[in-house]
């Protein structure tokens, strides 16, 4: 029990022994730590795989429990964290999911997956600007595999969000880089072209459709899209020709036939078509004016309204104006037609049919500088 009276000597052997024991213990600890790490990773991986299976079987709550256990074992595993956060979000537990992604982004601020999931969370919460910011971080962030594909998908999700939110300017800003980055995939290229149309850029849409049609001449959707884009741009002949190409590849399509007919009518009505002789331009402009007045009278029968009366009288003058007077008769007729059409659009919006050649032409005329 009592300590023996030891001599006060500190032989080298004691120190050597201590050093040997420390070295041996250190080696043992490092070995054991390695064994533990391997076994724990294996266990966590197994739990994660089970969680995946449960999530696929739509048992998200059970999957969440397994993901949590996997994370408790293999702390800080980004893949597990992302899966847990995604599962939590899928069950509507956004409040619990956010800290999980926050933790990932605290450690890896440029992690593509973390940013993408966070963007989805913010989008679900209705914070679109924040979501857009996270989408951008995901697009320019780092991805372990298939970075290009993930970036495009992230951008498409952002674009989809912008389309739903009606943010056309931001949408166009996202489409331009996407067009450069996107691989040569027909469906993706067609989707980009569609999105250009949605963003209100038929010129870029037409280019995109034309590029697809050039590489895949049998793609009816490309020809159809090109026709629509050209219709929007006011290139009715080009639209006609595109619809003809489409109809040639899909002769049974009534829809294409209808659009072709519309393009042909618009082409015949278009007063600003290039290389059109003056008499023909004058005739077309007066025809447009006559049709507009008919629409106006249908919108406001009788002439009790002073504004309608003024517009009608101005149209009458423009219709009977002689050539070579101080004002261009074509411009006079078109100007009167535009004013009358504006009234119809304002007073009788239900009367304006978008599928109508007159509406198409008037729409283009209104866009003139």
């Amino acid at each position, binding site marked *: 029990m009592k300590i023996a009276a030891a001599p006060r000597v*500190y032989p080298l052997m004691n120190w050597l022994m201590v050093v040997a024991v*420390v070295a041996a213990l250190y080696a043992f600890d490092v070995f054991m*730590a390695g064994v*533990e790490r391997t076994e724990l990773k294996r266990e966590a991986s197994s739990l994660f795989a089970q969680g995946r299976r449960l999530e696929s079987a739509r048992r998200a709550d059970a999957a969440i429990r397994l993901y949590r256990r996997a994370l408790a074992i293999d702390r800080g595993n980004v893949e597990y964290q992302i899966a847990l956060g995604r599962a939590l979000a899928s069950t509507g537990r956004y409040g619990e999911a956010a800290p999980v992604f926050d933790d990932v982004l605290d450690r890896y601020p440029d992690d593509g997956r973390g940013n993408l999931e966070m963007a989805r969370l913010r989008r679900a919460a209705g914070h679109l600007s924040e979501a857009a910011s996270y989408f951008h971080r995901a697009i320019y962030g780092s991805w372990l595999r298939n970075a290009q594909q993930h970036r495009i998908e992230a951008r498409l999700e952002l674009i989809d969000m912008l389309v739903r939110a009606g943010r056309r300017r931001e949408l166009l800003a996202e489409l331009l880089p996407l067009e450069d980055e996107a691989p040569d995939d027909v469906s993706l290229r067609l989707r980009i072209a569609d999105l250009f149309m949605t963003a209100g850029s038929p010129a870029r849409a037409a280019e995109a459709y034309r590029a697809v049609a050039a590489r895949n001449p049998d793609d009816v959707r490309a020809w159809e899209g090109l026709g629509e884009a050209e219709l929007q741009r006011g290139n009715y002949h080009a639209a006609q020709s595109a619809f003809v190409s489409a109809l040639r590849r899909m002769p049974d399509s009534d829809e294409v036939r209808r659009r072709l007919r519309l393009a042909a009518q618009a082409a015949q009505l278009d007063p600003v078509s290039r290389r059109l002789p003056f008499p023909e331009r004058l005739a077309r402009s007066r025809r447009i004016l006559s049709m507009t007045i008919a629409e106006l009278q249908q919108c406001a029968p009788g002439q009790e309204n002073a504004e309608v009366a003024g517009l009608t009288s101005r149209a009458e003058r423009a219709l009977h104006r002689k050539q070579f007077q101080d004002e261009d008769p074509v411009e006079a007729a078109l100007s009167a037609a535009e004013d009358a059409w504006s009234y119809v659009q304002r007073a009788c919006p239900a009367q304006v049919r978008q599928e109508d050649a007159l509406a198409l032409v008037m729409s283009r005329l209104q866009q003139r500088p």
Partner: protein
Amino acid sequence: MNSSEGRYTRCRRRLLSAGSRRPLKRGSILKEVAERKSPQRVRFWSHFQLSDEARIELVLSLVIGALVGLVVVAFILLTGRLAARMYPPESAAWRRVLIPALGSLVTGILLYRYFPNARGSGIPQAKFALFIGEGFIPLRTVVGKFVCCSMSLASGIALGREGPSVQIGAGIASVLARRFGLTKDRVTALLPVGCSAALAAAFNTPIAAVLFSLEEILGDMHAPVLGTVVLSSATSWVVLHLVLGDEPLFHVPAYQLVHPVEFALYAVLGIAGGLGSVLFVKLLLGIRLFFRKLPRSTVWIQPTAGGLAVGLMGWFMPQVLGVGYDFVEQVLSGDLAFKVVAALAILKIAATAISYSSGNAGGIFGPSLFIGAMIGGSVGALAHASFPGYTANPGAYALVGMGAAFAGIVRTPLTSVIMIFEMTRDYSIIVPLMISNLVSFFVSYALQREPIYEALARQEGVILPTGEARSDAEGARVGAALRQADHPLAPADTVDAALERIRASGWNALPLVDDAGVRALVTERELEAAWREGRRNIGDAYPAPVDFPFVHADQPLSMALRRMGSAGVNVLPVVSRANIRQMFGVVVLDDVLAAYGLAWEKSKSE
């Protein structure tokens, strides 16, 4: 060696060229050169000169830190891997009954036959060694503790690994210190060094480990071993990080106080934690008393009873088995159901009490945290269900509950706060933690006066000095033993008369007082010398004030004892802090001893 010789040769040459006539001894040459270079620096470093033993002690505290850190890491890893093999994922339920029973049977036999001192937690055993065993812990006990605890914890016994780690750490410190031939005092002084290194590695809490060694093991927050304790704790922590990396024991989400009303709820949690702690301690002591009354021949089989009971509980709720830190982390994340955590709080109290009392090897630190987390989780779940808009996630309450139970069971509130903070590294929870811990501590103190380790020691027939008693003694001040100096010496007194007065007083010194106050403390020996020199008056021997030993009224009595010892007197003047010549009275050795309660023993011995 070579560089030293080179330096010596260079110094010698320089001194010769400077015309030194002194004998050219190696030490004096180096010293002279050093003094010529920078006298101030030499004087400065002379403050740090240590004796050989002190130097060895300092180096050993580093070595103990590293060695204990490595052993504890090995202990943790070995226990974890063994447990993983005994309970593979998705294993059958029968394992949960059979393995704890078998494990406790094997360890019971080992403990009975080979390692009788390796039973139980390890904290009381370390304190026995510290206070009554002169620092002696045999290597066999260290080995036994390591082996038996690894087996019993891996088999699922509901005990913790931290208490055993503390005994292993203290044991390693004791073995090393003895191996290096240190004196008994220094061996004893190294025990807390081993304890703190062990706890730092076991919990990954270096600051709490230091505090625990001071607060619980030594019971003295101002212990002189603080430096070495800190050194070993830091070394051990570094070793832990080298091997296992930088991971806190528990990963918790960031909590925050949702509403000030939560402070009241945390106080309620403190009450619940305190009551739970008292229930646990009383149950454990009661069951232990029952087992101690059984015939001695059954000691080897007693642990099996504990193992079987835990196994049966584990059949229904596997979370009861083992340390259970994985489940604690789930609860801390708020992933819990009220019924489960409430049931686990009760079952774990019962499982740990019976595991420990039946004589299995393992500690109660880990189970305290588990019980606290479950109590906290239950209170939190109820609070959150009742006031969802005013309360945080139940996980926050589980976290605070861990500290509350620890403070209530182990009775170290300061260590508890710092430990939970270090374990989770979450500062935001610290104020609720302090509130809850203190409430729990006071509830526990009110209902169960004796702390658990003292109570366990008392059952063994050992009375350990409690921290409370020591702090009471430390708290006694000089003012409490102050008495008037009835017959101080005056400068005009003759030496003969002064000698007579000193001898009549029964003291060996008297203060010499003039109009301005104390001029000196005159000892009997000095008066005799003055008498031999033929001086008439004391004023002739002390014409002006001289330095004299003294104390102030607000200083501890221990300080008066130390000063009396170093000055060789049994009386000291008690003087003002503003003017040391202004005397309030004197303090006498007999009065100091009486204040420590030793007057009776003195009179008895006389």
